[in-house]
């Protein structure tokens, strides 16, 4: 499903992650492939159980003990120095991973308090991070940290650097986390629902900040959210996931204006929109299946309005095909049997 490009910074191919649980093996990410160009923003949208967080944790090899990356998975990454790594195939204790985490790929989370230890000041933790990756003295590292805090819009950075994360408000904590993630100038920033716990007014501030910082530092961003509207504001390309599978992928405008996959269409119809207060909300029928009862064939067929009438949906996994609606972007792909059938009918 990926468009192989020489310039790709990160290329994920056939990534599968499984969890060992009390009730058996559970598939969290299923045969996922995507590519990320330098400076690009990829938005991954999905509901709970879609595997959007798990797949990005796999990029940094930060998965919990009970998770395993399938042997056929590859995560190719080109480092700042120009070396190629296959992150999926590396040993979990490989030294290069430490350089990778923080130095090359950094991450920010929904809950900043999880990223900061309550025992140390923000400064302590940022300075430690800087010295881990760069040969600089403590004073120099502190200067870098203060500059970065200032850059992300913290008021009084000289004062804030000696505070603990819990002394800050939610928005300021999120800024501090962004500062500590970006201080090493990573090539990729993974933002896992960074605005979900924030109020809308603060969310808008943080989204603006991320876009500014991206312009300035040129890093690529993988932005994960359950909220398609947030994604549409920040992403260039979108990947729609459901139950660990990619449903649809392509440039953001094409996805939002010409959604091809019934799941994406359903998701857009289910969002309450201010522009259309009087239109009824159209939910996607049914519930998200438990990971233990993963549907066969197309994983969405149990909730798909067309799934019942179309036999292949229940039995075979659809391959992604290019969208053919006139206005859809040529790089816009969707994994749906209906699209294939439609295209065949057109050809006849």
């Amino acid at each position, binding site marked *: 499903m990926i468009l192989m490009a020489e310039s790709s910074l990160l290329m994920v191919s056939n990534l599968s992650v499984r969890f060992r*649980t*009390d*009730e058996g093996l559970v598939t969290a990410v299923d045969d996922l492939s995507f590519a990320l160009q330098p400076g690009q923003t990829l938005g991954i949208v999905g509901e709970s159980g879609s595997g959007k967080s798990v797949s990005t944790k796999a990029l940094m090899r930060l998965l919990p003990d009970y998770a395993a990356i399938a042997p056929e998975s590859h995560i190719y990454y080109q480092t700042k120095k120009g070396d190629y790594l296959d992150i999926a195939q590396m040993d979990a204790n490989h030294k290069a991973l430490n350089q990778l985490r923080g130095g090359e790929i950094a991450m920010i989370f929904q809950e900043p308090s999880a990223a900061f230890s309550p025992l140390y000041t923000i400064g302590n933790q940022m300075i430690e991070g800087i010295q881990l990756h760069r040969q600089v003295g403590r004073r120099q590292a502190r200067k870098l940290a203060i500059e970065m805090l200032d850059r992300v819009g913290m008021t009084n950075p000289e004062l804030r650097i000696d505070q603990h994360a819990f002394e800050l408000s939610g928005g300021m904590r999120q800024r501090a986390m962004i500062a500590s993630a970006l201080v090493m100038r990573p090539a990729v920033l993974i933002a896992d629902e960074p605005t979900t716990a924030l109020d809308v007014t603060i969310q808008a501030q943080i989204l603006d900040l991320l876009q500014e910082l991206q312009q300035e530092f040129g890093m690529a961003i993988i932005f994960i959210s359950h909220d398609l509207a947030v994604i549409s504001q920040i992403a260039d390309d979108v990947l729609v996931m459901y139950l660990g599978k990619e449903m649809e992928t392509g440039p953001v405008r094409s996805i939002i204006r010409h959604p091809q996959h019934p799941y994406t269409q359903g998701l857009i119809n289910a969002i309450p929109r201010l522009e259309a207060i009087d239109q009824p909300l159209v939910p996607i029928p049914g519930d998200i299946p438990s*990971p*233990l*009862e993963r549907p066969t064939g197309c994983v969405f067929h149990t909730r798909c309005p067309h799934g019942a009438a179309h036999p292949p949906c229940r039995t075979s996994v659809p391959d992604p095909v290019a969208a053919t609606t006139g206005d859809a972007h040529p790089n816009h792909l969707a994994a749906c049997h209906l699209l294939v059938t439609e295209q065949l009918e057109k050809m006849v």
Partner: protein
Amino acid sequence: MTETSVTEVTVPQTKPSNRRQEDYYTASQWQLFWTRFQRNRLATVGGVVLSGFILIALFAEFIAPYSGQADTHDTAYTAGPPQVIRFCDRAGCQIWPFVHEMTSSYSVSKKGYEVETVEEKGQPVRRSLQLFYPASSYRLLGLIESDRHLFGVNRGQVHLFGTDSSGLDLFSRVMFATRTSLSIAFLGVMLSFVLSLIFGGVAGYIGGWVDTAIQAFTDLVRVIPPIPLYMALTAMFPRDWTNTQVYFAMTLVLGLVNWPTLARRIRSYLLATREEEYVQAAKLSGASGWRIVTRHLLPGFASYIIVELVINFPYRILDETALSIVGLGLRRPTMSWGVLLQEMTTVQAIQLTPWFFIPLIFFVVAVLSFTLLGDGLRDAADPYAGLRR
């Protein structure tokens, strides 16, 4: 608690293919707890070993061939080593297991015990082991009168663990000591549990200034160092107290010293659970304070309490043993692990009579299995293990 209601609501039969899934969905917290516990091998082993100890404690009279009291001295076999169960010797084999008749006496010249096998006509004398051997009578569990013992020998005595320096059967003494030590710890834990439930429960449920007052008192008890407190309390026991009196006084001491920790835990658990949304929801559903406590707080609490108690148990065993070893707790002729271990604390024991250490093995195994079981129960009681995903 819901069995009755389940049958009343008419439920269509589930398809057999989904039976396993349905079992999981309709499993109560206790059933899930039990399933998780069974997965933990070490804890299960600990549980099995402990059941063995409990059986010993309950049926000590039956398992022990002798009462271990002063009237059962084997005067010909003082400080004798464990006797080996044999099927064969120089004179040939027999189907019934037997032990050799032996003597043991102190030799001043050799500064040690001399053990000899008694021989008749050049052959060692055999004592045949028999199951369910009739000997001294007792009341099993204080109810059933019986004179049968698990095993015995047809002549003299048998000493599988050897004898102590006054010729008492160590095997029998260990069996009775197991009962004493476990029961003291049990009563001590129960007493501290009742106290902590009262103090912690009241503080945690009522809160406010009652909580502050009880906390102050709890902290007061907690800051007294336990060892001097134990010593002071046990030193107050009058010398002329009977063993029974000392026994109950010991349980009292163990209970009184140890409730504050558990009380604090119960309090903080209640304080936390009281704020849970489902408790709030019950309150807004019109549930009374009593209903909230009995229907919502206690059921969640029970597994937690059991875990706490089991984890506390080995420490009470340690306490009793430690006190008895330094001579402040129980004393001869009462048999407890502490008393038996106290007898081994001599250089001679290490050099000459290493079997005096056998009670130590029982003690270590018991404490270890309690700890394993407690850990397993705690892991199984953790509601976040595998439920929320």
